[in-house]
């Protein structure tokens, strides 16, 4: 299966690979997927508490090229967005931007889940309630 040029670019030059201090109150961490399924994504956001803006985002991913590209793209998109804006990112945005084929849609779902998990982690850490999301259907 041939990958799209955008997936290859992200794979070769992934953006924002790294780790933020997960014990920091301003950092939200989302860890989704499972080793047995061949995909694990860890997405972290750093949030400016006063403005609610995402100032930094980092990822580490175990998975195929599409999973790596989706998480790399997610960090790019999240930086500079507010939490509310970040919540509007949809898995289909990844599919479109990266031209993911149907067999790789689960990678985009995982990226969306990772964003939501990171935001919820941040919310819970800061005394807010976790947002309940509908179960994603495509995995």
């Amino acid at each position: 299966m041939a990958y799209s040029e955008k997936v290859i670019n992200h794979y070769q030059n992934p953006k924002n690979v790294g780790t933020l201090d997960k014990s920091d109150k301003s950092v939200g961490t989302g860890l989704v997927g499972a080793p047995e399924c061949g995909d694990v994504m860890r997405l972290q956001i750093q949030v400016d508490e006063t403005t609610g803006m995402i100032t930094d985002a980092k990822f580490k991913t175990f998975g195929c090229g599409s999973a790596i590209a989706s998480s790399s793209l997610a960090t790019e998109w999240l930086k500079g967005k507010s939490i509310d804006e970040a919540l509007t990112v949809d898995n289909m945005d990844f599919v479109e931007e990266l031209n993911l084929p149907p067999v790789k849609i689960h990678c985009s779902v995982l990226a969306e889940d990772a964003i939501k998990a990171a935001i919820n982690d941040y919310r819970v850490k800061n005394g807010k309630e976790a947002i309940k999301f509908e179960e994603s259907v495509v995995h």
Partner: protein
Amino acid sequence: MFIDLNKNIMLKLPIYLDNNSTTPMDPRVLEAMTPYFLEDFGNAASRNHPFGWKAEEAVDYAREQVAKLIGADPKEIIFTSGATEGDNLGIKGVYEMYASKGNHIITATTEHKAVLDTCKHIEKSGGEVTYLEVKADGLIDLKELEAAIKPTTILIAIMYANNEIGVIQPVRAISAIAKKNGVLFFTDAVQAVGKIPVDVNKDGIDVMAFTAHKMYGPKGVGALYVRRKNPRVKVTAQMDGGGHERGMRSGTLNVPGIVGFGKACEICMNEMEVDTKRISILRDKLENELMKLEEAYINGSKEYRLPHVTNISFKHVEGEGLLMGFNKNIALSSGSACTSASLEPSYVLKALGLGDDLAHSSLRFGLGRFTTEEQIDYTVNAISETVLKLRDMSPLWEMYKEGIDLNSIEWAHH
């Protein structure tokens, strides 16, 4: 193209290390085939003119070449379209021919799909199949095999060597058990014939499927060995037609393909020893270098293994992602199945008891006659670099390095 193995040749990309899926044709094979597409195009079944005679003569000669490689009589060779057909004809053919004796077949979980799906088909039509588990090294347990035999057992179908991990089954011990119990022994020997010595008499094989394109011959032609003496074995034809191949396989013979198959067998016969020695040195080098990486594991028995195959898991790196780091330049396959809807990794690796994580992290290397040391050096570098790069990017690797037990984490399974 002739490659002088003693001279350094320029490294040409991409490098082919997927010889278990298919091999390039040896130029000498193509050379032998060419006339049979053009001037000598006759139908080997045409008895009344020189075109037919010439084709028949060529097929007879190839039949001898093929038979010789496996220590058989030429009359015991049935030409087929390949090993999938051979597996079907061999297993279904025995099942139908020996229906009055029983309906039970014993096979193993690590067989090729062509064998497993044939067995599933037989189960649907009323047969009974026992699927033996394999041990952690990929070998079947002979005691379990013996215990699985019952009065209705007519066939043991166990592969000679595995396509994913290269593990060689104890064929002689299996055939001895079969013989002792009056059961026929079928083996899918696709990966073994032409690579290691296979002798149907010494090995005690009754029926055996193999194919040309895994041994530097053309695609679309294979053979089924069917024993004629001690015991005389018959298989029920699976296609109706002109009664070719002693009535067991109808259909106009693929003369150029068969000629190429014969030539490929002859070359393997003459060069196997030298080839094997050279290739196993390269395989060992590749393996030893890659095993220098942390958390790398060889899958399957190292002792009972084809000389040109290795299957290695690089923990905490996903196979398909790993391949992407170099698959423009190196052709390999992975036990990961990230592209399939089920996301299920290799059933062969899982049968060894590997966790899904390790199965997802595996690469299969199949070296071949045209593999060079330069290619191996390049491959070692490219893979090592990619593994390190992806581990830097892997959350699992980070947790492993922090001493976190990955099994203690509650993963979101989907």
